[in-house]
């Protein structure tokens, strides 16, 4: 083969390679050129192993260029949405009055709370707490509140509730509530998955709802799903709801609009707590300023309990440095600790429940479990430790006390500890069927023959009777 032929066959082969594909309108020559250029540009390791991938990459690259007129629509993600809403929390008010800052604000000091809770091993994380702090600020600014407190968080299956507790200025704002309450009650009845049969001793009349500002409705509750989202005010609770809510054992869904009983029934975990320095002698008890609305009389009444309680803790050998007196507040008293079944909840007279300052040591044991666990936050530096109280009855309820500072919080599923497994209440017996008496017993329809036979029999009887009557008349005539 001479040179000329060789050149010719090479040219033939080149022209073969330059032939465009009928499908993709590409040709191998250009493709290999591009591929080798890509190879030279990128110089990958083990080029021989990845050459197939690179080849398909090159082909794909050509396609993409043709599709470049189509552009991706930027997707709005959930976190971007939330960030947009939370941006408002971080805006600084433009004209800050310095005088206003000096006025006592209802805004709680969440940072302090967060710090102590962290000592106690409870909390939502520092960032989350800060967001909640800002959200509470927003709430306080938008609503006329006298006092506000972070109550806690209730976990739901799809979302969680952050709950704030507040005292609203002016107590007569519940004018529009009765209708709402009615609706709610209907809801309650409908959605109870496991309502027990009504107990017989209970009076049929609905226990009147306590006025806002007293008893179970002493506080107004606001909830939101995420800090930054709008706060929703919960309707005030009626006794029927409390009893109903007690019987419910179901997860919160985290959607407020799902028809489910509002979580106030769970607020009975609320407890108030006060503490005094150990050094303070028992004579100079002073109501802690944070104890709102507690009459002085009851305070005096509680003195013996208080002392007793202090001793009790000392006997336990803990908290020798601080006298911790934690008392179920009026919420839990009136709604009962739920083990006091015979006690009608939300009785209008607060005297019915145990007195205000019953020490927790008198709380009843349930299911062989003491209702509270007490511990110190630190064993190494116990001089500055915080006393922590954990509720065993309501897993998730915590209280801490350090010096004169104290608070409590609930973070959990909103479920009470119920000892053994839950047994759904037995269904009511089916109603009795109708009594089987001949009037309503089914019988076969008579056949035509039977009917005719009956008719003939009746006619015969009739004829006989007429004959009889005729003879009677004749006899009578004869008598006359």
């Amino acid at each position, binding site marked *: 083969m001479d040179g000329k032929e060789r050149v010719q066959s090479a040219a033939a082969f080149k022209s073969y390679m330059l032939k465009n594909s009928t499908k993709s309108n590409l040709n191998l020559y250009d493709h290999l050129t591009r591929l080798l250029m890509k190879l030279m540009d990128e110089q990958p390791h083990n080029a021989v192993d990845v050459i197939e991938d690179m080849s398909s990459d090159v082909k794909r690259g050509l396609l993409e260029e043709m599709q470049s007129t189509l552009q991706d629509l930027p997707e709005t993600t959930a976190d971007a949405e939330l960030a947009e809403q939370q941006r408002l929390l971080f805006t600084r008010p433009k004209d800050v009055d310095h005088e206003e800052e000096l006025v006592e604000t209802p805004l709680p000091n969440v940072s302090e709370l967060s710090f102590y809770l962290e000592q106690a091993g409870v909390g939502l994380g520092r960032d*989350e707490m800060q967001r909640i702090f800002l959200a509470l600020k927003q709430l306080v600014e938008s609503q006329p509140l006298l006092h506000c407190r972070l109550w806690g968080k209730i976990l739901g299956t799809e979302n*969680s509730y952050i709950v704030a507790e507040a005292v609203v200025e002016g107590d007569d704002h519940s004018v529009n509530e009765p209708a709402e309450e009615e609706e709610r009650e209907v809801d309650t009845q409908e959605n109870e998955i496991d309502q027990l049969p009504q107990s017989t001793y209970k009076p049929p009349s609905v226990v009147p709802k306590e006025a806002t500002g007293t008893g179970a409705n002493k506080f107004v509750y606001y909830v939101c799903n995420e800090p930054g989202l709008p706060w929703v005010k919960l309707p005030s609770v009626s006794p029927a709801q409390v009893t109903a809510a007690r019987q419910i054992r*179901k997860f919160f869904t985290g959607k407020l609009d799902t028809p489910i009983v509002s979580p106030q029934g769970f607020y009975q975990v609320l407890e108030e707590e006060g503490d005094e320095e150990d050094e303070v002698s028992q004579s100079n008890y002073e109501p802690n300023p944070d104890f709102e609305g507690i009459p002085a009389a009851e305070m005096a009444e509680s003195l013996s309990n208080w002392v007793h309680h202090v001793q009790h803790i000392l006997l336990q050998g803990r908290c020798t440095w601080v006298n911790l007196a934690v008392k179920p507040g009026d919420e839990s008293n009136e709604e009962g600790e739920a083990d006091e079944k015979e006690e009608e909840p939300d009785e209008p007279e607060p005297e019915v429940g145990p007195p205000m300052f019953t020490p927790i040591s008198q709380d009843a044991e349930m299911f062989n479990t003491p209702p509270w666990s007490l511990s110190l936050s*630190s064993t190494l530096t116990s001089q500055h430790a915080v006393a922590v109280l954990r509720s065993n009855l309501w897993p998730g309820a915590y209280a801490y006390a350090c010096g004169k500072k104290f608070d409590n919080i609930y973070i959990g599923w909103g479920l009470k500890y119920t000892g053994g497994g*839950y047994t759904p209440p037995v269904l009511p017996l089916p109603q009795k069927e109708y009594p089987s008496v001949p009037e309503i017993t089914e019988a076969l329809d008579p056949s035509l023959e039977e009917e005719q036979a009956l008719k003939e029999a009746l006619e015969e009887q009739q004829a006989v009777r007429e004959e009889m009557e005729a003879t009677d008349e004749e006899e009578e005539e004869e008598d006359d």
Partner: protein
Amino acid sequence: MDSNSLYYSLELVAGSGHILTPEQRTALESSLVLLKKNYKFSRVLFWGKILGINGVYFIAQGRGEDEMKDKKNLYSLNCMDWFLLPPASDSMIEEVSKATKGRFMGDPSFVYEHQEIHRQGEGNEPVNEKAVITVTEEKRLAVAVHQIDAEVSVVPRGAFIKSPRGLVQLNRSFGGLSEAEARKLDNFLHLRQSKNMKKKSILDMGDWNPAMDYLDALSDDIPKGSWSLQFEFARKVCVLRSLLWLGLTFYHVPMTPQHGYIYIGDGTKNLDLPFML
């Protein structure tokens, strides 16, 4: 959760309401390092807390070469001194489930007693034989940890791979699930010996990767809805909570390899779950 990223991880699961005090955290950070060295673990996880009435158990888990089989659980009452928990055998699980009830006491030497009456003999004179089962709380703890691990330990799909030798190991090239993937329970798997694999249809298995899909998915759990999937922390972190074992929280930051789970609870199973959904 891995003891190396304890601070960061704890912050992400704090939405369930439990955190560690700074003292506990710092104590763990030093003691778990020693633990890893002394027991020759390849990595150490802080597993969680079990809240007893009078005390709290801190649980750590050491993992060896195989992440699924070489597991050892340890407990501590003060975050510093660790004691090995016995491995849970079937007979032990049975004993514990019979004898124990209620909360943990917080004392590992506490003894639960359970009397069992066997009826023997027939006719008019049945002979009652009393058998007393005694279980220490340490055993109960071992069983509880074992059960929680077996029922609700979660990993994102692809985070652990099965090597050709059959070892389950961390996947170093795991880049995290995408946000869309993290919204589906299919992409979260149980880190345990698979139980449901054989029941799957061929169609489902068509696009499976044998190195990754050797575990059961959470979406097949019974009852449906025993997991709560949420996005927390400004909706950036995918958080899974088990409703079967209240207190188990799993987190995964989408598009990053960070994931982990922690159990902080009273160590009892939520038997009421079917009624609560």
